[in-house]
């Protein structure tokens, strides 16, 4: 026996070593996003993964006086602006815009919307100069003087005014602050896409490190999609580890209490270990990597896989070898494994990578655990008879024989089903955020900071398409007149068009062509200066700049290299699937339907309104539909398996009825507790189905005698305690996914056990079949 154990150990160690060497864990949450059918959905996914919004990090400094916070804000912006992890860090201060302002100043004649030929005629120039004279004499003259000689017609200001984002945080001491002056704000754009949690974690560490070195007394709060990704990875990892450890300890303690001997405990853990390890390896082989959520889920496999060896060992009679017991209960065990595999099979076929991984892990893990229990354990033990004290579990015969608990359960189930039917579909989750593993408190903090900053969340944008970048920019420009009308009518709060700072090449060329040649300009200027106190040569720089602008090639993306606007352009003017897209984010849209219709009615018809919330809820609905279909097919398959395996419709009914009731009651209790059912709840219900059917099958197996009945009772109590312990701990997790699965399965398993005990036990008359 020792030799066999050593062999098994060596096999296991080799597998474990292999796994440790090759395992690649990824946390891209979009693995749990549905593969998107429509272009809009693909756009949404690409935006969520690595779009502009996904890269923005919100930094709030607090815990010091206003002056210190303002200094810390400037120092931090300077430091992050030069860090490799960030494209830029903005804090509202003017000097930050120096590099960007230089680009805008240099290309003002290509950018300014007010440029046309009459703009430089003598009367227009005269009017502009009179206005400049007023400015010069005002207290703000000190500001306008800086550009007056080069730009008397005010193109630079016109360009800047156009770029004014409208809603911005309040300024104090020249940097962004909350209204009450308690928090200083920065917005940083990370180089890493939002989903890359590892590099996002590096960016977060950079902020903390920089601030600790500069202003250790200032506290910092960070939010944003990337921060969420990093934080949820950390949470999932620590939760999965901590909670798995807790449940493992509880299970170990229970096993030691039940068996009072080390060998059976080790034997019980063997199938779990093999199942988990091989399951993870198969997932890795099929998908190339294992998702962190899948790994977190592996904890749930423990709860189920540990049932089989327990059932086997606790069912061995005194003096019986494990091999004989395995033969005796083999049929039931096989059916139990097959039903769980059937429930997981549905997931495996899912088109979502994340769900498919969960399915494969469960399926392979359960099969391996079942096989190990049925074959490996008896082989390891050989002819050795395991001796351990068999606990006696009270039969509760009075309750079991009484009819009223069953009747109450049936009534409750019926009421629950009716109530759920009445409330449908209010209890389905429609928010895509429910899929994200971010705890609600973090999302709340994020929206609170956004409110304080006056930076509303973008829920709409216009996508303008084109075969080339130039064509897309042209399409993006065509919508500006519509958007401007809507803004003036107060039907849009603000919009932010990339076409403002990167006009289509044709628009730029038209503006530059409208510039007069040097001789004509000088002549007009001479006339315009008449009667004004300006020195005759005061505007030589202006004449030179216009001459230079006429020679300039059109500006492009590269003109903005290294500036915040450049980073923004890269996020808003994108190539997706061989097509160019210009994205114009909108804030505060009053009547999305009307706007969508107006955009669709435009002659070119290249722009459409993208409603992020609507697309995401469509996606969730599609996601749920698929999960429901799969659950349905899985349930049908299980029913078929049971009918064939049990060879009796009546026994099939006895096994399935309590589990169906348990599922209904679980959903009722969850919904009554205020939860909305999302995809992860459905997955968890599939698990309940698998685990619950195991119980019902074990209960239903007609026992030979009273001793066997006692053994069945004990094994079932042990199984259910381990399941409830595992999933109960999981329900403590702050990560929504793990919490949903944990609470659903713990509740479902408990209800399954109780209802199986009430309904699935064979009638006395059938005892000796």
């Amino acid at each position, binding site marked *: 026996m020792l030799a066999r154990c050593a062999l098994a150990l060596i096999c296991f160690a080799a597998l474990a070593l292999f796994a440790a060497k090759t395992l690649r864990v990824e946390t891209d949450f979009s693995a749990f996003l549905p593969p998107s059918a429509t272009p809009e959905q693909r756009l949404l996914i690409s935006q969520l993964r690595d779009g502009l919004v996904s890269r923005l990090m919100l930094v709030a400094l607090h815990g010091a006086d206003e002056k210190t916070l303002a200094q810390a804000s400037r120092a931090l912006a300077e430091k992050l602006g030069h860090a490799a992890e960030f494209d830029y860090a903005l804090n509202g201060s003017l000097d930050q815009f120096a590099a960007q302002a230089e680009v805008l100043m240099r290309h003002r004649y290509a950018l300014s919307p007010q440029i046309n030929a009459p703009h430089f005629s003598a009367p227009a120039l005269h009017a502009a100069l009179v206005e400049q004279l007023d400015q010069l*004499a005002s207290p703000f003259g*000190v500001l306008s*003087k800086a550009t007056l000689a080069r730009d008397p017609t005010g193109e630079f200001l016109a360009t800047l005014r156009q770029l004014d984002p409208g809603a911005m945080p309040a300024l104090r001491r020249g940097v962004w602050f909350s209204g009450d002056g308690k928090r200083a704000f920065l917005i940083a754009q990370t180089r890493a896409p939002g989903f890359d949690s590892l590099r996002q974690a590096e960016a977060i560490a950079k902020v903390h490190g920089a601030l600790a070195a500069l202003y250790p007394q200032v506290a910092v709060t960070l939010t944003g999609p990337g921060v969420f990704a990093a934080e949820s990875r950390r949470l999932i990892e620590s939760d999965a580890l901590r909670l798995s450890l807790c449940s493992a300890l509880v299970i170990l303690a229970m096993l030691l209490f039940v068996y009072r001997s080390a060998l059976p405990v080790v034997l019980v853990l063997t199938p779990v270990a093999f199942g988990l390890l091989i399951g993870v390896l198969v997932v890795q082989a099929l998908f190339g990597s294992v998702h962190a959520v899948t790994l977190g889920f592996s904890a749930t496999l423990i709860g189920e896989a540990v049932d089989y060896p327990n059932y086997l060992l606790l069912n061995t009679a005194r003096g019986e070898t494990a091999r004989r017991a395995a033969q005796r209960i083999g049929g039931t065990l096989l059916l139990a494994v097959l039903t769980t595999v059937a429930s997981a099979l549905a997931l495996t076929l899912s088109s979502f990578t994340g769900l498919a991984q969960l399915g494969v892990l469960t399926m392979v893990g359960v099969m391996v655990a079942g096989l190990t229990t049925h074959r490996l354990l008896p082989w390891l033990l050989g002819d050795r008879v395991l001796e351990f004290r068999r606990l006696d579990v009270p039969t509760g015969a009075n309750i079991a024989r009484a009819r009223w608990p069953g009747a109450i359960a049936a009534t409750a189930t019926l009421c629950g089903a009716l109530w759920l039917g009445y409330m449908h579909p209010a209890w389905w989750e429609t928010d895509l955020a429910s899929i994200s593993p971010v705890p609600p408190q973090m999302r709340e903090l994020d929206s609170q900071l956004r409110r304080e900053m006056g930076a509303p969340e973008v829920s709409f944008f216009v996508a303008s398409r084109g075969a080339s970048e130039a064509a897309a920019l042209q399409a993006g420009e065509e919508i500006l007149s519509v958007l401007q009308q809507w803004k003036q009518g107060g039907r849009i709060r603000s919009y932010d068009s990339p076409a403002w700072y990167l006009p289509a090449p044709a628009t730029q060329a038209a503006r530059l062509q409208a510039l007069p040649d040097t001789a004509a300009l000088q002549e007009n200027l001479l006339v315009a200066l008449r009667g004004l106190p300006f020195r005759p040569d005061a505007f030589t720089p202006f004449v030179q700049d216009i001459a230079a602008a006429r020679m300039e090639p059109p500006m492009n993306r590269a003109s903005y290299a290294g500036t915040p606007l450049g980073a923004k352009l890269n996020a808003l003017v994108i190539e997706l699937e061989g097509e160019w897209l210009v994205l114009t984010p909108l804030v505060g849209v009053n009547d999305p339907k009307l706007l969508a219709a107006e955009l669709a009615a435009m002659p070119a018809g290249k722009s459409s309104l993208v409603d992020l919330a609507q697309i995401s809820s469509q996606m969730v609905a599609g996601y749920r539909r698929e999960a429901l279909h799969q659950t349905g097919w899985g349930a049908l398959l299980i029913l078929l398996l049971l009918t064939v395996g049990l060879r009796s419709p009546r026994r099939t009914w006895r096994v399935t009825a309590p589990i169906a009731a348990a599922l209904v009651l679980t959903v009722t209790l969850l919904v009554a507790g205020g939860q909305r059912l999302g995809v992860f709840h459905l997955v968890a219900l599939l698990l309940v189905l698998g685990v619950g059917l195991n119980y019902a099958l074990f209960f239903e197996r007609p026992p030979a005698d009273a001793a066997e009945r006692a053994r069945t009772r004990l094994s079932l109590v042990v199984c259910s305690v381990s399941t409830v312990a595992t999933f109960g701990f999981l329900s403590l997790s702050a990560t929504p996914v793990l919490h949903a699965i944990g609470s659903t399965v713990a509740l479902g398993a408990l209800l399954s056990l109780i209802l199986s005990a009430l309904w699935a036990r064979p009638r006395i008359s059938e005892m000796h079949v």
Partner: protein
Amino acid sequence: MKMRPSSMPALFIALMALLVAITAHADNFDLARLMQLLTLSPEGEVAYTEKKYSSLLTEPVVSSGTLSYRRPDTVEKNMVSPRKERFRIAGEELIVARKGIENRYPLSSQPLLSAFAASLRGVLGGDAELLRQHYRLKLEGEEQAWRLELTPLDDEIARYVERIAVSGRGGHVEQIEVRESGGDRSVLQVR
């Protein structure tokens, strides 16, 4: 009567004493005294003429209007000629009314704005503490002809304003000269 020679030194001493007393009085005119005088001067409205000198101009641009101060912190500059324009600093805001459009800027938003407001409020209200937050102060002259020079402490402001020189008589401000960093300057003269 012939003066005794011995009385000559006595007279000299008396004259010296008087001189010293006068000088001592002049020495007594310091920043605290100026601030006290400014604090005591009545609120009200005065007419002004402002001349803006710039390297871009052949002759200065002249404007005129009224300047008024109300305790504790309201300063209003009403330009009447060559056009109507109103700058009003009140509470935490600068309000600019120009061409029928009113714009409001929170003073705390930009250092330049808060320094600009502080220079007017500090001088007109006699608030040395407020002035010292933004400027280095240098006082010259005597009570009836003083000149107070404000040099910005903050580099951010020094980028635009080199110094502000305020001169006056007793508790009355007579002239405010702002010298910009580029060499341009404006001189506001109270009439």
